[in-house]
């Protein structure tokens, strides 16, 4: 219970302020801080992915907590788990349904390389059917590792030139 201090009047009260930037930076800034992931949870990695969104690791700190279960609203696909050849068509369709621009994280060794499933049923690395931006090793990877991948994707987005397309 201290004494009340009167807050100083803001200088630009009334919306008189401005700042300068380049449109490219503004677009990249918006994109990288509002990635909406498409959670393609195929097996046990999906549990770690859920932990990543939960309160302890809290993906919302990086603006990527809005998991959407329709690919039409997403721009970051997290392939979490073992992709079988039977599922491959569906995964590719989900990827194609996402609007541009879009990025892909291969989470865990199964989606990165087939992992321990070197057999007839499993795709030996999702890069044979999808363009992958970043691979996260681990079986399953810790949520920190996937958050690190997300930060690296954000760095990658910063360097992109959206107007040059």
């Amino acid at each position, binding site marked *: 219970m201290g004494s009340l201090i009167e807050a100083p009047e803001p200088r630009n009260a009334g919306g008189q302020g401005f700042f300068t930037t380049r449109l490219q930076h503004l677009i990249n800034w918006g994109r990288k801080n509002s990635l909406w992931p498409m959670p393609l949870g195929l097996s046990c990695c999906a549990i770690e992915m859920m932990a990543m969104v939960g309160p302890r690791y809290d993906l919302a700190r990086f603006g990527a907590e809005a998991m959407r279960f329709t690919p039409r609203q997403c721009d970051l696909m997290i392939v979490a788990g073992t992709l079988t*050849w039977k599922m*491959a*068509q*569906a995964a590719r*369709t989900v990827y194609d349904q996402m609007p541009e621009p879009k990025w892909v994280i291969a989470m865990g060794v199964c989606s990165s390389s087939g992992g321990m499933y070197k*057999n*007839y*049923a499993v*795709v030996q690395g999702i890069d*044979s059917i999808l363009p992958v931006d970043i691979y996260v090793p681990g079986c399953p990877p810790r949520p920190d590792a996937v958050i690190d991948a997300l930060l690296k994707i954000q760095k990658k987005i910063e360097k992109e030139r959206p107007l040059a397309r």
Partner: protein
Amino acid sequence: MRIPPDQIRNQAEELRSLVAGIEGASVEEGIDMPVLHLPRERLLEGLQILRDGPLAFRHCSMLTAVDRMPEEPRFEVVYGLYSIEHNRWVRVKTRCGEFDAVVPSVTGLWPGANWLERECYDMFGIRFADHPDLRRILMPEGYEGFPLRKEFPREGIEPGRLYREWERRRQEPPATAAGESAGRYEV
């Protein structure tokens, strides 16, 4: 659940008297339950007795196959039956060869065996006569080969073939004829 050996012996005796009328049937004392061997031609007859007889094996808990490759006949189809009333198990085995891999379906006795038989067909290529819907269940439609056969290569025979065919069809220009859609998943 461990059953003492003398109890298994008693159960096997009981089974022997039950299937005494079936030609070619034999009962063996397994390590955990009695095992009944039936010839393929008398399989349904024997299973009918087990289900409707005094022991009432009304639950088909398991159905699978074993590929005993150098032996002839090659495949062994195994049924795990459970009697809920008597808390008792029995394992039933029958054999079929590679070139006439056909076994009568037990879906008429236990409707729950439907998917088990489909899986068995998918993995071993054993066909079940009179099965209502004998399709692959785990592998995609059109897959080549039967993965759990001993001669099947572990890494598959062109595992990505079906995907590549789908991809090629997708790359083709869409059909313009009226009423034709772009497929099941339209992008």
